[in-house]
């Protein structure tokens, strides 16, 4: 659960992709008249221009208020185009982005909280980036995959939430991990909807002040640690189903580019490296290896779709990636009896030395995978 951060990464990758693919993005010198002046105060967000041509957009932000603020450029559905956090009182910051024609909003958030003070931003003209047909093909196939995963998740999640709502602890435990597979396979895209992720996949330590703990991990704790489902937990089940339905409906609108796919694959491995190998993700159910496998499958899907492009540009890299994916999958297979099932060894039974082997195998794959985006855009 690293919603905002990851979505920003995706946005940045999008920008980079457009730049690299078209090869004609103009760089501003950072000082010219083109910059939009944003004066952020505690109760206002003044924007010097609200109509701009498409392309390189620069916001020169001044925080004249008394609180630390953050400034966002948002898509109409609140997806983040670009953002800058922690702008202290009396300080300045610059935000840059490549923006295509369309309607956007600029939001200042004094105190870095809430909906923010918003201004419309209209971007017009310019031309959309051209992509090669094979890039379009990869993106289209990945879009289908992401939608398929969401579609397949809903009925599985329903088995889980129905069991929770019915107070059937054993049935709920049984359905828990599999209900998360589709989400885990496409996590970077799922997380890009910054408002859904904190409701469905947050862990106790990720909660912000005043945030109510909901979603899978709250129910995981009820099932495995508290070993009871009270009225409150039962009420969380339909809420989870509703949020996932929201995800299923919106996932098709996600911004996907070849570089966001490549970096998304790396991010899935990062999820494993930081949350799963340590056993933090599924600390009550110890089903970490299932999430682990799903993350790897999602990363592998992205890679496979990009491989025709990557192997042409960097054959050595794709050979390494083929090998490392195979090695990691082979290692993961030693933790399940049957290669078609998702019944993995409980992570609490995986010893320290074996966890290090898993961690080493993840690093062995993630390190070259971090070079996939460059290979794709070469």
């Amino acid at each position, binding site marked *: 659960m690293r919603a905002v951060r990851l979505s920003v990464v995706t946005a940045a*990758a999008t920008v*980079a*992709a457009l*730049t*690299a693919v078209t090869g004609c993005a103009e760089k501003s010198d950072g000082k010219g008249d083109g910059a939009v002046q944003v004066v952020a105060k505690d109760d206002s967000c003044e924007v010097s221009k609200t109509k701009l041509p498409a392309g390189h957009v620069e916001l020169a932000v001044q925080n004249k208020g008394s609180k630390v603020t953050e400034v966002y450029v948002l898509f109409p559905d609140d997806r983040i185009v670009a953002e800058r956090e922690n702008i202290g009182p009396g300080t300045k910051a610059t935000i840059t982005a490549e923006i295509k024609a369309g309607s956007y909003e600029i939001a200042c958030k004094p105190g870095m909280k809430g909906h923010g003070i918003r201004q419309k931003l209209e971007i017009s003209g310019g031309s959309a980036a051209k992509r090669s047909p094979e890039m379009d093909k990869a993106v289209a196939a990945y879009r289908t995959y992401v939608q398929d995963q969401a579609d397949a998740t809903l009925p599985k999640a329903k088995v889980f939430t129905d069991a929770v709502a019915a107070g059937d602890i054993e049935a709920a435990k049984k359905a828990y991990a599999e209900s998360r597979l589709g989400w885990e396979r496409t996590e970077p895209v799922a997380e890009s909807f910054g408002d859904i992720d904190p409701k469905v996949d947050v862990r106790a330590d990720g909660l912000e002040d005043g945030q109510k703990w909901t979603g899978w991990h709250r129910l995981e704790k009820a099932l495995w640690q508290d070993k009871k489902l009270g009225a409150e937990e039962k009420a969380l089940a339909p809420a989870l189903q509703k949020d996932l339905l929201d995800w299923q409906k919106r996932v098709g609108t996600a911004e996907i580019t070849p*570089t966001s796919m*490549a*970096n998304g694959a790396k991010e899935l491995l990062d999820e494993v490296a930081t949350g799963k190998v340590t056993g933090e993700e599924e600390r009550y159910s110890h089903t970490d290896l299932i999430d682990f496998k799903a993350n790897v499958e999602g990363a592998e899907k992205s890679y496979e779709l990009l491989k025709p492009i990557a192997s042409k540009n960097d054959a050595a890299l794709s050979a*390494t990636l083929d090998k*490392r994916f195979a090695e990691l999958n082979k290692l993961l297979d030693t933790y399940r009896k049957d290669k078609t099932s998702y019944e993995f060894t409980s992570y609490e039974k995986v010893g320290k030395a074996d966890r*290090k082997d898993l961690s*080493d195998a993840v*690093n*062995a*794959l*993630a*390190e*070259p995978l*971090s*070079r996939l*985006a*460059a290979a794709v*855009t070469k």
Partner: protein
Amino acid sequence: MSEDTQNTAGESPDPGSPATPGPGGAPSRRALLGWGGAGLALGAVAAGGAVAAVRSDDAPVPAADSGAAVPFHGAHQAGIATAVQDRLHFAAFDVTTKDRAELVALLKEWTRAAERMTAGHAVGDGAYGGLAEAPPDDTGEALGLKPSRLTLTIGFGPTLFAKGRFGLEDRRPDALVDLPKFPGDNLDAARSGGDLCVQACADDPQVAVHAIRNLARIGMGRTAIRWSQLGFGKTSSTTPGAQTPRNMMGFKDGTRNISGTDTAALDKHVWVGGKDRAGWMTGGSYLVARRIRMHIETWDRAPLQEQEDVFGRDKGEGAPVGKAKERDEPFLKAMLPTAHVRLAHPDSNAGATILRRGYSFTDGTDGLGRLDAGLFFLAYQRDTREAFVPLQRRLAAHDALNEYIQHVGSAHFAVPPGVRDKDDWWGRTLFS
């Protein structure tokens, strides 16, 4: 910089006049003279790969205040006889690939990266300015820092020669023994052994850490870090005439170390010679690394007389018992039979002599509120069977210091000869 390095630190003869970089960022002749002379003083053999004392390709630093670069190429690896730097990052690696060709490719990549980093350059295409959508080749935390006399020294552990691994079982040198279990050892497997090691020494800890971090990153998928150790405050000196630094017990220990300029002693005790019948190791050495935890709190409660008796030196000057000056010839029989200096002295060990490069370490506290501190002991020798092993047998059995220390980590490595030039690589003599 500590006193003992003053005349070897590679400062320009005229620090007031910065050397101008030559074409292509190469140092001027004057700058070369500055630390070329240092290379000689350091005892580094074959300063063939003279290198610019800059860390960023586009921002040459005047050699006069460059923190000096130690030549990487030579008959022996730098970092053994080289004047001891202030800081250490030592890492032991497991080789995770089963493919010999992959291991060889890694050693070549590591060599190229080590050449760049010891010269003060960033790895590969650097830490910035590359593709926006890819991570940079170099991790970047050493940008703007001086070369800081960084040396990188590689070693091969006994497990690398195991049967069925890389076809090296017949090439394991006899001297690369499995170290015996010494009385009092309490070795932690997670801090012991390793197929490979890299010793990074530098005057700036960030430069040393950067070097290990980048090698570890390049190695991912082929090697994995098994354990590592940071060290500070070198506890022995390879520079004659310098003050011997103090260990965490407050004592000077290592006064009688082999000097980095004493070629005869190095040839006799440190470098593997042609007669040693270990062909690929000629010009190399054997490294023993021991993590020695000190019981700091009980030591601090020991009376001064006991502390001095334990070492066989006085605490102030470091003079041997009954003598006035640190470097006065010790009269061993004046010391307690269990005194550390007496037991460790070559005269008590049939002449067995090692070259020490140990560092102090402090890894916070141990959960019981005790300082997790001590000595990270590094010893180089021509044949471990004739040097460290008999020496440690004697110390483990009799040393009064044993009440206050415990050996908790241990490793042994064959350190191959130096990388001769730009086409050579770490381990070529072993793998070719």
